């Protein structure tokens, strides 16, 4: 589905990413965590070809990619319907309505982004990411700057879509708990552990949220293995 083998990515003569290699198949959910400036967003830019200047190869077995950015990035002059339709390759309004209904947004079709709350705008961005049923979904800190209940509810919507359409997902996040509770694999970027993929639990592709005590246990294990990764600095 996705094969990544990045030898080197420089930015202003500084090595940002070195020797990053991993594969993802349909249904995989990988979180990438690491401190600011470690190259998390750069990695997503390489995958989307927004940045093509690197040594290595990226093979994607998919015609389209769905992406959620740090901001909803909806075009303010288009309605919700037009914002999704602009990337929709089928033009099937029923299908768009189906996805909007899944996240409780079916009544917003003709609303402009300025009339949507932060959470609503991100749900539109979520529907836009899935409208072409891409085999690969990229999420660049999509829950940042949302209040906790909204972020959790949006995560539920995301997991509902993932369960229904089974794409490979890469989530870039600063939030340790978010990474552990949502993903099956975690890739650390930055510092000595760069490139390491930590596979934890959920090997049966289950997207069930982990029991909180279990999360704590995994977190403590990770922190004991990599004491320099301090919570809150990620």
């Amino acid at each position, binding site marked *: 589905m996705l094969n990544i083998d990045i030898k080197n990515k420089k930015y202003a003569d500084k090595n940002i990413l070195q020797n990053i290699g991993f594969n993802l198949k349909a249904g995989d959910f990988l979180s990438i965590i690491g401190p600011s400036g470690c190259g998390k967003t750069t990695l997503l830019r390489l995958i989307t070809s927004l940045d093509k200047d690197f040594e290595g190869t990226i093979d994607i077995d998919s015609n*389209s990619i769905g992406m959620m950015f740090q901001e909803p*990035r909806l075009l303010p*002059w288009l309605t919700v319907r037009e914002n999704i339709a602009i990337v929709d390759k089928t033009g099937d309004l029923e299908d768009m309505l189906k996805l909007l209904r899944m996240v409780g947004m079916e009544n917003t079709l003709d609303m402009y982004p300025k009339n949507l709350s932060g959470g609503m705008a991100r749900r539109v961005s979520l529907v836009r990411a899935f409208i072409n049923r891409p085999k690969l979904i990229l999420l660049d800190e999509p829950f940042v700057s949302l209040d906790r209940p909204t972020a959790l509810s949006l995560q539920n919507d995301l997991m509902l879509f993932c369960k229904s359409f089974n794409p490979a997902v890469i989530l870039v996040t600063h939030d340790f708990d978010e990474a552990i509770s949502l993903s099956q694999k975690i890739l650390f970027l930055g510092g000595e552990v760069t490139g390491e993929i930590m596979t934890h639990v959920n090997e049966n592709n289950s997207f069930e949220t982990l029991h909180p005590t279990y999360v704590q246990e995994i977190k403590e294990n990770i922190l004991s293995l990599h004491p320099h990764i301090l919570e809150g600095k990620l």
Partner: protein
Amino acid sequence: MSNTLTWRIGSFFLLIALWQGIAFLADSSVFPPPTNVLSSLIEHISNGELLHHLGITLYRVSMIFLFAMPIGIAFGLLMGNFKKVDAALDTLLVLGLNMPALVVIMLCYIWLGLSDFSAIVAVIINKVPMVIVNIREGVKALDKRLIEVAYVYKVSRYKLLFTFYIPQLYPYIIASARNGLSLIWKIVLVVELLGRSDGIGFQLSMFFQFFDITSILAYSFSFIIIIILIENFIFRPIDAQLSKWR
């Protein structure tokens, strides 16, 4: 809304009253009162002469507008997006911006002949650089994050241009169109005065030779009325339609 309309109409009539007052005090044939100008306007309209010349000037203005805007927008987009194109054309642009309109008009008449074609080309050459500068600045101010959405989702070039670029550039385009129209018709009058035998510019030069200030003002007002109509019935409705998302 009705309040702003009152102000518009009120200030207009105040200006007319002021003009009438000064003309009354001056009592000179070179400073005619608005009533004389109005009756001269009616006379020129009723004998058909004004409408004929107005039509010709309007035709020239619209041809220039229809060519200058798309050319300017296209080059503005290219220069704003591609550094190499910008570097290659920048000197030419500065030259175009600073070349006196009069020189361009003279050169066009000499090189291309005293024809409508050269008149129109001369004004297009005068106008295009200004549109380019506006649009190029607009492209630099674009929200690149929205453009990235287009690239990630691989939208067609057509959609990229008309859904992502043009709406963001719209304030720059409408500003270019508005000041473009006012500039174009001013230069068209000079072009007509210098080398055409019809159009408002030509008529003005004739009236000037006879010191017929009343007719000069009547002709000028006829065109100002047209510009006001264009502003109110074309630009404002388009503006309102395209800005409804704001």
